[in-house]
């Protein structure tokens, strides 16, 4: 079966999630959301998946703070972060490019990264655009650092980075190339990566999603996505959503 790049990434991220109890997905993260819902379908309801901003796909009843409280309690095993820039130390920049006094580019802001990157054990970095513009030697602004001094409370941090070209793992303050996506090459990855990284002698190709996975994603996961990511679900999976939610009899 043919597949879209988004489908490959979601499949890979679902593998990275592994056999954990609880995956949470932040704002503006449709591919990680797809991956988390896919992992939940494969696990028949486990892991718990929480999609920030989606009442249907969160169990939260204690308000917008519950995501962060939950993470502080050690009850979130996997989270996702992106960045306008990501550097070879795992630092992420969600704020600005240029000098802080007169930036040239402004991004939305750090969201919860300056907290969640420290306390969630497995943080998966994702950035579809893989270029020397996004993957840099040193970020201009550290929304959250990739590593901390030993005396800083930090049970969490980055474990991987996935892009439209490849998958890196992260350990001991450095990225290691794990696999290159079909249609891309190691040379291309080197050319478009602004930071140094390690790589084994043989770098495998990222496996394509199976037909079974694609069917699950398109038929079961995509409709669930549409509540929170109507545009993404429409563009990638051709799902349409009515403008109004059906009025629930129980909503007072």
């Amino acid at each position, binding site marked *: 079966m043919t597949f879209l790049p988004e489908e490959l990434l979601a499949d890979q991220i679902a593998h990275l999630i592994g056999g954990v109890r609880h995956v949470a997905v932040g*704002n503006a993260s449709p591919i990680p959301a797809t991956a988390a819902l896919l992992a939940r379908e494969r696990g028949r309801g486990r892991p718990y998946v929480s999609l920030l901003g989606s009442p249907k796909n969160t169990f939260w009843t204690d*308000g917008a703070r519950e995501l962060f409280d939950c993470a502080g309690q050690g009850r979130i095993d996997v989270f996702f972060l992106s960045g306008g820039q990501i550097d070879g130390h795992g630092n992420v920049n969600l704020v600005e490019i240029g000098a802080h006094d007169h930036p040239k580019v*402004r991004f939305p*802001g750090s969201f919860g990264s300056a907290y969640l990157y420290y306390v969630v054990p497995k943080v998966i970095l994702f950035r579809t655009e893989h270029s020397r513009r996004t993957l840099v030697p040193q970020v201009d602004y550290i929304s959250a*650092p990739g590593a901390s001094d030993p005396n800083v409370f930090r049970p969490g941090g980055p474990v991987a980075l996935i892009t439209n070209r490849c998958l890196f793992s992260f350990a001991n303050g450095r990225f290691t190339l794990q696999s290159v996506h079909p249609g891309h090459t190691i040379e291309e990855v080197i050319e478009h990566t602004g930071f140094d990284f390690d790589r084994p002698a043989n770098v495998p190709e990222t496996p394509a999603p199976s037909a079974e996975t694609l069917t699950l994603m398109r038929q079961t996961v995509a409709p669930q996505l549409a509540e929170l990511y109507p545009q993404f679900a429409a563009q990638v999976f051709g799902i349409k959503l009515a403008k109004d939610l059906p009025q629930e009899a129980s909503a007072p």
Partner: protein
Amino acid sequence: MSQIAATLDDALGAITDGCMLVVPREVSGVPMDATRALIRRGIRRLHLVALPTSSLQADLLIGAGCVETLETSAVSLGEYGPAPRFNAAILARSIKMKDATCPALHAALQATEKGVPFMPLRGLIGSDVLKYRDDWKVIDSPFGNNDPIVLLPAIKPDVALFHAAMADVYGNVWIGRQRELATMAHAAVKTIVTVDRIHPGNLLETPVLAAGTLPGFYIDAIALTERGAWPLPLPDYYAADGAHLAEYAKMAATEEGFAAYLEKYVYAKRAA
């Protein structure tokens, strides 16, 4: 005595030039009718605290020149792209930006809710978010061993403003699962709420409704603004108006387009 005001403008009276105003994130009930009314009134120099992020609301207020200081963790139109007027204002340095991280804003409002001058928070150490916040402090935790931890000063807004599905004539407001709205009201000196409708009876007298109710004790004014979060969503009631948000993103990309948007969707209502 009822908190229910005759008009939206009456209800918004306590929001004055220069005040510190706290508002919720996009999916917690954003008072968009009220926001448009404040722009029409020409409010100025707001210290806007968006708990913990914002989208259209902050972008509109910034574009219309209402904001002096913005304290939040992110402003974006989500699927509809960057927040153009926010970005332009930052690059033009026309607003003072206090970048935060989501749990820091929650904690700083909970500090005021609990009547303490600060709250501790994990994370942050080694980030530039902390580096550029000279109002935040790092101490060596008295319960650790060379264990640095950040202390955040309490945020005490002058006014909390949000939109909810319904209120009753006693001033009680049903907030459902959006518990941070209760924290906002507890922390703010005054609280103003817009609602889609008035619930018959007393929300506190029905245990199942009471569980999701912010008591009228904390509410200073209520205005009825049907579908008052439009074009943003009100969870469990209506979704965002995606077509409108896409139109906004397109128009607000330039200053002229933004002015045309204000004329069409904000100022036009003044005559109506």
